[in-house]
């Protein structure tokens, strides 16, 4: 492989290549009974890469605009060679990515990996989670079918409930008072330019932080290791952990391919802005818990409108989530139990409400 060493020398002479990658070679991954959770971040990254690749391919044929969007997606599904595959992978991967992003967040939460010095990793991660949900919301509208149209209508209308800033925000999102072709254009811009740009920067930051601070070890394992230093086990990232991660990524590819081929994503019916909303319209599963919560809140609590309270409540929850590490004690102190309790509650609430929302009429 003299060619490769030649290239390496070339790079090293100009960029200090060897010094650059030296820390990477030292990177290790702690090994313990909870190590499997470490895969989730990488899987989310893998799915994001898939989204970017399939998204770019879809961009070659998709036409934004109320009178062409649906037909262009139909065209991709029927006329373009393997268009059905690219589109279905994109749709499935989107849903899987949102799931793994949530799973990754919860695993970090329960493994207490957000504590000092990793607070900013957590903050960047939570912002990324919001961005991922934004991807989901904006991308869902792009095929311009009935379900998407009305889901967007309901979703933006709920945003409009926020006091003071709600209405301007809603008009900003919708590109006008109502959901129209202008909304589609705007969401398209968010989905393919604004959010990818933000996401890429934040992912780079997030990975930089992970590199800088190393992989954290859960408190229980940490104490065990401190008592018995001989029991510490680590694995090199290169090549050992990375090879395992590669297995996980290939499994992910297989799963995506199978889902796309066996359960192709539905096209639906072209949106008719003047038609009536289909009965029992619901948002996609990742928004169900919020939607169901809003449905259950009574219409008036004391003097405040129920829906406004619900929206504000979720806003507050988001802020708390973002700043969670700053409420937490720094190691070596024990983690605060109320945060663990809050985490359990959040997980149970999200899961429970989602299931409830799915089966509710």
């Amino acid at each position: 492989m003299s060619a490769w060493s030649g290239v390496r020398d070339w790079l090293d002479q100009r960029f200090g290549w060897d010094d650059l990658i030296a820390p990477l070679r030292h990177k290790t991954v702690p090994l313990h009974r909870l190590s499997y959770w470490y895969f989730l971040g990488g899987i989310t990254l893998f799915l994001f890469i898939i989204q970017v690749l399939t998204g770019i391919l879809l961009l070659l044929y998709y036409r934004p605009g109320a009178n062409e969007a649906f037909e262009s997606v139909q065209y991709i599904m029927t006329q373009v060679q393997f268009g059905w595959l690219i589109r279905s992978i994109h749709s499935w991967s989107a849903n899987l990515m949102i799931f793994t992003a949530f799973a990754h967040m919860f695993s970090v939460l329960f493994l207490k990996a957000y504590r000092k010095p990793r607070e900013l990793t957590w903050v960047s991660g939570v912002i990324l989670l919001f961005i991922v949900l934004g991807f989901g919301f904006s991308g869902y509208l792009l095929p311009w079918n009935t379900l998407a149209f009305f889901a967007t209508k309901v979703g933006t209308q709920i945003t409009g409930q926020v006091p003071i800033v709600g209405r301007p925000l809603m008009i900003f999102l919708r590109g006008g008072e109502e959901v129209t072709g202008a909304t589609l254009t705007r969401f398209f811009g968010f989905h393919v330019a604004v959010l990818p740009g933000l996401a890429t920067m934040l992912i780079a930051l997030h990975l930089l932080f992970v590199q800088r601070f190393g992989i954290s070890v859960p408190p229980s394992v940490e104490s065990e290791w401190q008592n018995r230093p001989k029991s510490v086990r680590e694995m090199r990232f290169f090549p050992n952990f990375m090879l395992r991660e590669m297995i996980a990524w290939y499994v992910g590819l297989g799963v995506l391919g199978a889902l796309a081929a066996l359960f192709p994503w539905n096209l639906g019916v072209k949106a008719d802005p003047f038609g009536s909303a289909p009965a029992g319209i619901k948002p996609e599963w990742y928004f169900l818990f919020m939607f169901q919560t809003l449905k259950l809140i009574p219409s008036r609590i004391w003097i405040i409108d129920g829906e406004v309270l619900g929206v504000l409540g979720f806003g507050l929850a988001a802020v708390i989530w973002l700043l969670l590490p700053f409420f937490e004690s720094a190691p070596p102190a024990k983690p605060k139990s109320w945060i663990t309790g809050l985490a359990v509650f959040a997980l149970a609430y999200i899961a429970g409400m989602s299931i409830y929302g799915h089966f509710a009429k």
Partner: protein
Amino acid sequence: MATSRNSVGARIGCLFLSACVVLCAGSALTQSKNTCLDCHSNLPAPFGVTAETFSQDIHAQKGLTCASCHGGDSTSDDPKVAMSKKAGWKGKIDRKQIPQLCGGCHSDPAYMRQYNPSLRTDQLSQYKTSVHGKRLAAGDMKVAVCTDCHSVHDLRAPNDLQSKVNPVNVATTCAHCHADAEYMKSYKIPTDQFEEYNKSVHHDALMGRGDLSAPTCSTCHGNHGAAPPGVESVANVCSNCHVFQAQLFAASPHKQAFTSAGLPGCVTCHSNHAIVHPTDEFVGTGEKAVCTQCHTQGDEGYATAGEIKEKLGQLSSSINRANDILGKAERSGMEVSDAKLDLTQAKDALTKARVTLHTADLTKVEADMKPGFDASAKDYDAGKRALAERDYRRVGLALSLVAIGLVIVGLRLYIKQIEQG
């Protein structure tokens, strides 16, 4: 100079009161005084007519009073004056006189022009030609007169949904007598028409879909000139809407045959009142077929009927096959909306063939079915291609999963290899 507050208030009060008086006087001018209701609204039946009831009456709304029909003086409070012969009081109108009374205004174009120039004025002359009119003239008081159908004292315009002669209510109004077996005993005509009509597609269209162009009793029998269409003219009545079928029938051998046999045209196969949705079972030689009413095995008509039925069945099943396979492909996730759209053309062809069979001509029916056969065959192939594409995708998936499996196995082995030395 300065007016006190009280004074201003008084002025306003006076102004207000005088306005009231003027308004009341004005309303009195526009509305004729109808003192009859003062007493009659409190009287029991048959003398009682409440003001509320009368306010729904279109005659009252147009400014007519009790005196307009009953004579007398409706402005007087004194019953002896109001109901005096001098004032022309007629009292209860004799049943036989009712049509003449109503016709007094309603047959006068010059008079009716004041109220509604586009209203017809031939109701009375039509009525005289009707079965009801003729029998009434002969002394039968049981038959319908104007007020039986149109109601009286709360008579509404026909386009009012509550009117007894609004299209959606006509059948019920006719059935009031015609479905009453006791009442109709002496006439020796059937009393099942209402029951039968309620089974029909016309009833479903009118009452179910609200399609006001669908026929009710008066559409075929006439309203004022109500009489059953004669056996020879039934086909003419149906052909007002079912033009195409009627034309084809008229050109078919059946027309002549039915006329000479004295058969009532369309009604022979489709019935008169219980006109249900025809199915393919009506055609051919089966149990429910209408053709076998006349045709028997061995005659040409019998054979043709059988062939037409068979061809219809073939097209129908061809369309169903195509529909099934396209549905299957769609449920597997394949996009087949083009083929499904094309299949509607095939369904149209079948509809057309079911009309063309009124010619009783096999070649014509086949000609109309041909595009249907072509389209359904093409769409069936499209469905098969879609399923083949689905299978191709699954094979492709299997192959790529094998490749991925190979990679995963290889990686595992490799990991084992480098970690065990």
